[in-house]
């Protein structure tokens, strides 16, 4: 998958970096993507977002056929407004660019897998 990259952290475990989705690359990376995409709307000041992100990274390491992206709401207000985000962490699953389902708040790995139906 060319849209993800791996980075080795100090302890030697593998960290998955989610695709940084912005207002500018949304069309190319998400709207025109054929297949499933999970977007994580987050912000630096959001504690639950910081707890959720590694869980999503863990899922992303295990599920290869899905694109995983993150949207910083501070930097991409237009995109946050497009999805009418009023609570974060906000997860949304899209298939061929169409919204399939969404959720608000902290989620376990199992809950995320259920959202993705995998």
């Amino acid at each position, binding site marked *: 998958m060319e849209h993800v990259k791996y980075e080795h*952290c100090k*302890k030697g475990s593998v960290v998955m970096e989610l695709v940084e989705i912005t207002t500018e690359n949304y069309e190319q990376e998400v709207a025109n993507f054929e297949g499933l995409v999970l977007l994580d709307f987050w*912000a630096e*000041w*959001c*504690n*639950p*977002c*910081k*707890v*959720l992100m590694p869980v999503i990274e863990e899922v992303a390491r295990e599920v290869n056929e899905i694109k995983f992206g993150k949207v910083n*709401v*501070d930097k991409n207000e237009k995109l*946050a407004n497009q999805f*009418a*985000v*009023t*609570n*974060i*962490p*906000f997860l949304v699953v899209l298939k061929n660019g169409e919204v399939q389902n*969404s*959720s*608000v*708040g*902290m*989620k*376990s790995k199992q809950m995320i897998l259920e959202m993705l139906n995998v």
Partner: protein
Amino acid sequence: MKVTIVGCGPAGVSAAIYVRRANIETTIIGTRDTALATAKKIENYYGFAEPISGMELFEAGLQQSKRLGCQVIIGEVISLFADDKFRVRTMDCEVYSDAIILAMGQQKKRLDIAGLAEFEGHGVSYCAICDAFFFRGKKVVVIGEGEYAIAEVKELAEVVGEVILLTNGFLPTADLVGISVITAKIKAIVGEDYVAGVVFVDGKNLAVDGVFVAVGVASCGDLARRLGVLVENNKIIVDEAGATNFPGVFAAGDCVNSLCQIATAVASGALAGISVAKYVRSIEVGNKNGTCKI
């Protein structure tokens, strides 16, 4: 190292006893408004030849914890933060610690207002500090009547355009100086895809962009969600050691157990107390060795 226990019912006090006896600085913060204190006669708890009232047992627990050296703060916890340390905030003080145990009892029944559940995530929020950002310059309301609601109003006032407190027919129990208040009973939260307004039982309407819920006192679930602790069906999810998914946050008692009994609360409090003591010791060792847990 320090541990703060939020809640001074049987689970919180039981946890505190184990933490303190592990020679760790221990603070208990909570109100006397516990399920235990309302029980008139307790006959199903070990060790009492004659029934004991819930209030007597509650006070005895507090005395026991104080005798062992726990600091007890009677006050309502209105917020919780996790930075370098955990910070537990009441209206009057802020307590710092290396780990916390949430033991504030069962989550009270959620508000039964039409539209509230439907619009959750679409303009209805349960955390001002988490979601105020999305209502910058907009008009929002906070449903609630006590100190917790006032704290949420103050948090929002820094960010939003206008904030009004809706007491939903209840008399305010906190100082409301400088706060716009409507006391009418609420009938429904309305809108199409997103919150657009509040309709009152008297037929009046109020156009708003967002609704924040902060009724009564902050529950374990309310505080847990702020940190990113997993909550399901109003119960905090813990492992067999009483640990949540958030490092350093443990939980015990009715906010965890499905069987809401004094005996089970005491048991899970003891377990969380032992676990949190092990946890802070592991941090202490990590710090001395110059390593950190990831």
